């Protein structure tokens, strides 16, 4: 039987900031983005800020309204990456099967464990759930270590918590869920925060928990699926278990089987070790400008800078791509009374509404488009594709954010040397620019058109899209 630990840091970015600066400890802290921190949304809220109702993703004026004493801290992704690296270094001492789910969430699989008979003493009940006599949830796993692992799963979890405190920082806390599969481990880890430790030992224990949580509290059921289930008359996992597999397959196609299994606490997906992570599917960047703008020259500069960063990453990875996606987000627009809020459509566009916004409700209008170009890793070719799309989707209004990505990637094959002088010159120039920029920093050498443009710095995203940990 598998034993999986889900380790989730609590209010990660805010906690790391509090670890670095003890003057922030015990105070409501909101982590936000870079130099534009007055215009972006909160990337994280500390445990203290959450008590005021401040949430991740909230607009700053909205958060300050809820908590006027909120301390805004400029986020530093490299600090959080360092913390994650140290944490992964700890985990690799327990098992090689470590899956980095995001910058603050990891699955750890312990193999060769025999669970044996589960001791049935109850633990503290998270979120005041009634403890069902005889159920196994919350019971510690037996201490039956295999030869390779000196500690039982529960001891392992306690040891990980101790080492995080010692090696990452005493203020950094995590919640750990232990179970027999990934989804149940993640559910267990989400039940009690901060600094929780919950075990769901078997399917009976899983069903006990599932019957007491909302459908969308489990990884795999989001807003849209929950709504579709509600439309079918399914409002709980108990209801979901009553739906025949055939009916779920008819409504959700192959995902019906996932839902069928989910409601029973079944999940066959395995932990994907970080060193076997899937290949990169797209490379992209986005940038929130520090003011709303409709100045085409300024937008062009920002877009070209983003594209240059993308192209350099493609060249580093020896990849070429042919699908260029661009999306823009317009300036914040308050809703008028009675105005219908459009549903968000895809990551490429739609409207992002904040119904309780500072101005009594409003949102960000956005638009996006994809274009297909010849396979390339050239900044200028990607830019040309992106710019044509931008001009098609831009309605002339002020924008606050622009993003671009390149997908449909394939490895760059060695090419014959070109006899075209211009092409050869560009290739040589690009190679030299990359060498200089790798040595002295991005945009040390850049196109003349970018001189005097705003500073754009590459920061890793929290989902670590193409980041590889070397531990």
């Amino acid at each position, binding site marked *: 039987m598998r034993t999986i630990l889900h380790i989730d840091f609590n209010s990660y970015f805010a906690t790391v900031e509090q*670890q*670095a*600066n003890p003057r922030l400890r015990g105070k409501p802290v909101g982590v936000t983005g870079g130099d534009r921190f007055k215009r972006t949304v909160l990337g994280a809220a500390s445990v203290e800020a959450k008590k005021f109702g401040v949430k991740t993703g909230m607009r700053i004026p909205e958060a300050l309204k809820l908590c006027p004493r909120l301390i805004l801290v400029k986020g*530093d992704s490299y600090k959080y990456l360092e913390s994650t690296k140290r944490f992964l270094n700890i985990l690799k001492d327990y098992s090689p099967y470590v899956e980095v789910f995001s910058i603050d969430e990891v699955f750890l699989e312990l193999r060769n464990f025999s669970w044996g008979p589960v001791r049935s003493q109850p633990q503290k009940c998270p979120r005041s759930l009634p403890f069902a006599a005889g159920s196994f949830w919350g019971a510690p796993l037996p201490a039956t270590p295999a030869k390779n692992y000196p500690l039982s799963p529960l001891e392992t979890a306690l040891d990980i918590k101790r080492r995080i405190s010692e090696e990452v920082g005493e203020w950094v806390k995590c919640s750990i869920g232990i179970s027999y599969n990934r989804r149940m481990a993640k559910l267990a880890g989400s039940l009690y925060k901060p600094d929780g430790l919950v075990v769901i030992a078997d399917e009976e224990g899983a069903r006990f928990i599932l019957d007491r949580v909302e459908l969308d509290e489990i990884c795999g059921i989001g807003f849209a699926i929950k709504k579709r289930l509600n439309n079918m008359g399914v409002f709980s996992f108990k209801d979901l278990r009553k739906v025949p597999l055939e009916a779920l397959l008819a409504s959700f196609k192959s995902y019906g089987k996932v839902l069928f299994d989910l409601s029973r606490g079944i999940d066959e997906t395995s932990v994907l070790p970080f060193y076997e992570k899937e290949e990169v599917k797209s490379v992209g960047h986005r940038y929130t400008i520090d003011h709303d703008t409709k100045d085409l020259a300024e937008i062009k500069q920002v877009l070209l800078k983003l594209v240059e960063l993308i192209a350099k990453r493609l060249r580093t990875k020896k990849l070429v791509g042919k699908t260029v996606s661009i999306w823009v987000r317009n300036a914040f627009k308050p809703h008028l009374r009675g105005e219908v809020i459009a549903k968000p459509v895809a990551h490429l566009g739609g409207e992002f509404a904040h119904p309780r916004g500072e101005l009594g409700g409003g949102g960000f209008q956005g638009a996006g488009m994809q274009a297909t170009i010849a396979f390339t890793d050239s900044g200028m070719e990607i830019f040309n594709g992106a710019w044509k799309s931008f001009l098609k989707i831009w309605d002339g209004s002020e924008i606050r954010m622009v993003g671009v990505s390149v997908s449909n990637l394939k490895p760059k094959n060695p090419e014959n040397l070109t006899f075209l002088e211009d092409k050869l010159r560009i290739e040589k120039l690009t190679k030299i620019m990359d060498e200089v920029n*790798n040595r002295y*920093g991005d945009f040390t050498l850049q196109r003349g058109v970018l001189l005097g443009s705003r500073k754009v710095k590459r920061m890793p995203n929290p989902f670590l899209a193409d980041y590889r940990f070397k531990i």
Partner: protein
Amino acid sequence: MLELSESINVWALFEKASVRPFVFIWNNRKIKIETINFVHTTHEGSALIYHFSVSAGGNFYKLGFDCSNLKWILEAVEDDS
């Protein structure tokens, strides 16, 4: 928090593969570091830079150490003033 980029003199211990600042001189004051709360690194091109988040006398300081030129920079200060 006040963000700076001020070159400073730091008394530091280089041992094995690590570096540890213990005193720095700023505004003609000798400041003894009490705790190193967090250390992380960044790259500026190929230059490796260590950032030390430290506490001294109830104040917070962020020191940067550029491995390429062995220079120390005071990057941020948060005190009661």
